[in-house]
């Protein structure tokens, strides 16, 4: 009955003489389309080929502190996308920064803003993303970093700075000089009456944030950023002190390390738009589906992608970044609606982060 009454889409499953993986490989677009638009007579709902509903994201699992040599680390897993992030702090003495200018405290009252500029100017955050050979078939060994890897690391890098996640003040290694008694007389002669010596910055911590994709199955940015966020929250920098006699920074294990102060909880949410007609040059576009958290097969079939980074910590949802490109389906209304979807995802991810 079902097979004879259908006029538009043919009932695929019974007439197929090859298996689903073969169909997917041969003609991926009709394969996904058929799965998303089942026969109206049948009771099955619109499903993606991976069994998820269009607005269903993969559950996220986050494990922190799994790397013993790093100062902070996280392993994030969403479906078959697995990424591991390690954060390691390295000391950078100010003497080796060529453009270093010690900013006196009177110049600018806003210390926080100053710290933010330091982060940027001295490149204190260094993210790097590696899409390893073997994490997906499209990555070949022995080639320079792919465009995807470069684009991803630029996006992570710019979001790290624009969201102000890391407080630059945590990365300073300061020293308050102890004035010998004879010096005070000399100062008095100058007429300056400084009761307390200024704290000076002697070194900075540089955070090397390395991301390695263990396996890659679509939606790399969401997983990568979740890993960065979880790893930074896990990061404990060792207690460091400037030793004036030896003129170097000494780290001690006796004192407890300092946890980084991470501001906010920005969480990205990505989706891809799947069009009914692969040929998008007609005026009439046909139907479309917004596929949340796309996997590798879906990413290859979708042109238009959107990523919204939201932070719902306050009473009002703040959008930290919005990237939409490669198509014209998502207009103003759909993007506004998508921010609501991202809010839902935010809750899931924050819960997983604990």
């Amino acid at each position, binding site marked *: 009955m079902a097979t004879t009454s259908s006029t538009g889409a043919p009932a695929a499953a019974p007439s197929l003489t090859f298996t689903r993986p073969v169909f997917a490989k041969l003609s991926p677009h009709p394969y996904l389309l058929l799965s998303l638009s089942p026969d109206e007579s049948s009771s099955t709902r619109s499903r993606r080929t991976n069994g998820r509903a269009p607005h269903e994201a993969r559950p996220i699992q986050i494990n922190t502190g799994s790397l013993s040599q790093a100062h902070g680390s996280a392993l994030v897993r969403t479906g078959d996308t697995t990424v591991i992030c390690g954060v390691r702090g390295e000391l950078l003495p100010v003497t080796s920064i060529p453009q270093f200018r010690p900013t006196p405290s009177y110049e600018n009252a806003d210390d926080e803003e100053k710290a933010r500029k330091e982060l940027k100017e001295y490149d204190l955050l260094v993210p790097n993303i590696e899409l390893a050979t073997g994490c997906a078939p499209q990555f070949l060994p022995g080639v320079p970093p792919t465009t995807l890897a470069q684009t991803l690391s630029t996006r992570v890098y710019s*979001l790290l700075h624009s969201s102000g996640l890391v407080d630059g003040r945590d990365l300073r290694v300061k020293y308050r000089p102890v004035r010998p008694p004879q010096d005070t007389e000399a100062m008095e002669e100058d007429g300056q009456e400084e009761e307390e010596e200024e704290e000076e910055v002697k070194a900075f911590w540089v955070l090397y944030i390395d991301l390695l994709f263990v396996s890659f199955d679509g939606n790399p940015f969401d997983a990568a950023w979740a890993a960065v966020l979880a790893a930074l929250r896990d990061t404990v920098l060792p207690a460091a002190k400037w030793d004036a006699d030896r003129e170097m920074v000494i780290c001690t294990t006796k004192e407890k390390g300092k946890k980084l102060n991470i501001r906010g909880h920005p969480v990205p949410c990505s989706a891809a738009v799947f069009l009914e007609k692969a040929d998008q*040059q007609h005026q009439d576009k046909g139907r479309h589906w917004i596929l949340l958290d796309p996997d590798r097969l879906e990413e290859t079939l979708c042109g238009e992608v959107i990523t919204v980074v939201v932070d719902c910590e306050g009473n009002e*949802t703040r959008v*930290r970044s*919005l990237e*939409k*490109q*490669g198509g014209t389906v998502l207009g103003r209304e759909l*993007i506004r609606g998508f921010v609501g979807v991202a809010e839902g995802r935010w809750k899931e991810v924050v819960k997983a982060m604990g």
Partner: protein
Amino acid sequence: MTASTLPEAALGVLPRADGSAKYSHAGYTVTASVNGPIEAQRRDEHPYEAHVDVIVRPAAGVGGTRERHLESILQSSLTQIILVKNFPRSLIQVVLQVEDTPENDYVNTKLVQASLNFAIMPALFQTSVLALLSAGVPMRATAAATAVAVVPEDGAKKIVVDPSPRQIEIAQSVHVLAFTSQEELLLAESEGDFTVKEWDDVYETAQKICCRPASTKEGMEMVLDEEDAGGPDMRHFLRSTLESKVTADLHWK
């Protein structure tokens, strides 16, 4: 003050390329060349459509990860407006050379900058569209982009079109939006801290610039003194640039 200067463009500036354009606005000058459809490299070849290759060369130094990101954004947008299905297994190459950028006197210029280069995106976008038109590559629609920043000013927020580097530095959020000539949103990139409401305002401002409706029907006497919306009228600009080019080319008739 940067917004007050009108954009300038010239078509066909490079003699050997299939199409080329030079565009300058808001302190940025970009030259683009378009070659295509030409033979694609084996690995780029697509059996059903043309591969669009975008190369961005910065004003100084060699391109880094930031340029790769700009290229990937432009590539995905241009693929949407070019009729790529008409040229299977071929290549359309767009090379963009940045010639001039406004400088920010307040920060050290480094090769690797932390933030995305939002302000340059409209210039790159407009230049590539103009160069594609100059090369006669068939397109579904033209498109125009604009950069908008939300800058805090005396406690209130002000929307600045074509922000200067200094304004971007103090801005709360920076946005780049591109619209096709059919008034569809083609590209939206935002960074900073904003609400959906603020984004809506930005959207409206950008839409006014990119697709302001022609006030009189095909009227040649455009009402130029009615510059109340702030910022240039990009759609009209693209059109008039091409019209003057066509008139110049057909002058001998």
